[in-house]
């Protein structure tokens, strides 16, 4: 009976591990796959990319020049967009002083509503810092009001909207008082203030866009500075060991023994005040990095120490590799993913640091614009109570910081699925 075979054909087939696509790919590809599965982190990455793109073309996206003063619109509330003939439009405002509460009140005149147009001509700027142009993605251009656009129904609607607008301002019903003087300054061109205007009537939305250029980049530039110092010293410390390691580690501990913000503040206060915006920007990143490098250095040192003990490093030495080759072709590629994660998680602290310093008046200084500088206006609490939109620059701060944390978390899970 030939019922029992040698078992070889059977064994030969089934014994092999199932070949899957995962067997052929590198660690980087595996990480990308794992990262892509984390929808929250991918979402955060998309949001961040959009924010940086926005910052890159900020003037193009701004309807107004961020520095244009307009005392006629001091503390104007966020503009209400009305649909006129199915097209989003803006109503011109008239400014009056409310003598009882000693503040500006505005009334919208929606009979002369002006449509928001795409690709309008406005203030000159350089697209991406290169192409000079005066085209903006959207904005309002003052055009004479269409004569027929004044049915009574729309007028009542306008009244209502004015009332609620004013309710948003301070809760007082001043609509009646204001309407009496409605016609006094009718020639003013209407303005588009998505986020309202500040004390000098500058468009907060445009200022937030402009501020994102400083706030979003200062975080990254600061972390790059920290990374350069931190990775050099950290890797050096871990690889050399001994006295060098000891000295660097003690230095880090001492720097970390000083409370971060007061130290930043002290350094920032010691900076000269008569600098250009660019100089100030660089000095602030350096101040942030002076403290920031310690965390990076410490984590990197830990990684290097862990790698140094691994057998594949010993094997590389036995293969005849030089120290430089070991660092470049074994340690760095392995540490790279960790460095990326550590850096990603350090960026939000840098952003918060700049925002806090500027908020205190120690970071970026006007005329420079950053989210912190914009938020400095909220220090007068009474003003915030009346003009709550002054807090709006905080929204992008929170969004950016939260997205960086989410991104960092997702990256960490992707490189280290078991921890």
């Amino acid at each position, binding site marked *: 009976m030939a019922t029992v075979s040698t078992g070889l054909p059977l064994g030969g087939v089934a014994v092999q591990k199932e070949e899957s696509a995962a067997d052929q790919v590198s660690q980087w590809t595996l990480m990308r796959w794992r990262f892509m599965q984390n929808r929250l982190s991918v979402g955060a990455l998309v949001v961040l990319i959009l924010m940086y793109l926005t910052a890159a073309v900020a003037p193009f996206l701004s309807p107004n020049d961020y520095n244009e003063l307009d005392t006629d619109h001091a503390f104007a509330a966020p503009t209400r967009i009305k649909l006129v003939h199915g097209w989003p439009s803006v109503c011109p405002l008239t400014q009056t002083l409310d003598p009882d509460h000693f503040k500006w009140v505005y009334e919208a005149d929606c009979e002369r509503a002006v449509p928001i147009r795409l690709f309008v001509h406005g203030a000159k700027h350089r697209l991406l810092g290169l192409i000079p142009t005066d085209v903006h993605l959207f904005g309002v251009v003052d055009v004479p009001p269409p004569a027929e656009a004044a049915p009574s129904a729309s007028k009542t609607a306008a009244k209502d909207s004015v009332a609620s607008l004013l309710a948003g301002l301070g809760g007082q019903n001043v609509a009646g008082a204001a309407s009496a003087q409605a016609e006094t300054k009718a020639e003013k061109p209407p303005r588009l203030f998505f986020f309202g205007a500040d004390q000098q009537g500058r468009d907060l939305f445009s200022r937030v866009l402009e501020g994102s250029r400083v706030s979003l980049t200062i975080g990254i530039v600061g972390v790059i500075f920290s990374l350069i110092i931190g990775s050099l010293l950290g890797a050096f410390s871990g690889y050399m060991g001994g006295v060098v390691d000891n000295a660097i580690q003690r230095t880090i501990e001492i720097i970390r023994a000083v*409370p971060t913000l007061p130290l930043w503040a002290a350094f920032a206060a010691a900076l000269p005040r008569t600098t250009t915006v660019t100089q100030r920007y660089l000095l602030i990143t350096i101040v942030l990095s002076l403290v920031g490098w310690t965390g990076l250095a410490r984590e990197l040192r830990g990684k290097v120490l862990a790698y140094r003990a691994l057998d594949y490093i010993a094997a590389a030495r036995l293969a005849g590799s030089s120290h430089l080759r070991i660092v470049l072709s074994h340690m760095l590629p392995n540490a790279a993913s960790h460095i990326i994660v550590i850096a990603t998680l350090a960026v939000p602290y840098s952003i918060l640091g700049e925002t806090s310093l500027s908020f205190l008046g120690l970071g970026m200084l006007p005329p420079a614009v950053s989210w912190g500088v914009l938020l400095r206006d909220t220090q007068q609490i009474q003003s915030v109570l009346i003009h709550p939109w002054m807090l709006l620059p905080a929204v992008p701060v929170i969004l950016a910081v939260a997205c960086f944390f989410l991104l960092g978390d997702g990256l960490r899970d992707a490189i280290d699925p078991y921890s």
Partner: protein
Amino acid sequence: MLNFLIRRVSFMVISMIAISILSFVLIELPPGSAIEVKLQQLRQQGGDMTAEQVRGLEERYGIHDPIQVKYWKWISRAVKGDFGQSFQLDRPVKSLIWARLGFSVLLSSFALVFSWGLSIPLGVYSATHRYTLPDYVIQVLQFVGVAIPQFLLALLLLVLASRAFNQEVGTLFSQQFKNAPWSLPRLLDFLRHVWIPVVVLAVGGTAGLTRIMRANLLDVLGQQYVQTARSKGVAEHIVIWKHAVRNALHPLIMALGTTLPLLISGEVIISIVLNLPTTGPMYLQALLNKDMYLAVAFLLMLSLMLLIGNLLADILLAWVDPRVRLE
């Protein structure tokens, strides 16, 4: 244990010396000596000093001394509690800082206790109810808590407090208790005011600590000794609270090393926003006015506060984990 303490304390001393040198550099860093600043102010107000007076001041602050002598003069007085004169306020620094430091310590400690008391149960719940709705909610709140700048949270609560609770803000006491001696009503009044800064301070810390607690507890729950405890027949809640949480506390206490600096930083910034009578506002004013002797005294004291906090954390760690004790 004694050895351990001696080691930590001697590290503290070395750190303080290093920080004092750093601080001294900060005093010297701004262009122009403090006296010149003062003189300028006087001249702006129309006054002036005689050359004699100027020389006297220069003598006192050792303007023409070599730097190490200057440092030595300054530090030997600072050790005795004499941090020099505040030019801005024209008073000795030491008369200005102590009361404010006291409130800072009080606020920070309240916030620390508050955030620990909140983050441990939250972290435990989150870790033991993984992938449930409350766990996700807690995790989302963590992200928000970490992402909101503290000054902003202070502002928001301020708005909320004055709008919704109609509470006066920007102080730790009502008007009638401001300068009154301590009494029970004053204490109650204090507690009624102190909650805003404490909540603000605690939020960021709580978010971070909950994250750490959750991750560590998950780690510990995978350990063999947790299974050992279960295999003895220990009830699940005792397994978690007695056997697992106690071990998960170790990294939480270690995290104080990063929590405390954030706490003190936060305290400084929200005090500025809320205009509390703590170190923050005066420190900021001193920095903005280059009143460096005053500023540096604050910086030194805040650092000392942090170092003492870290020392206490180390002692706590040794108490919680016997392995550290015998190291």
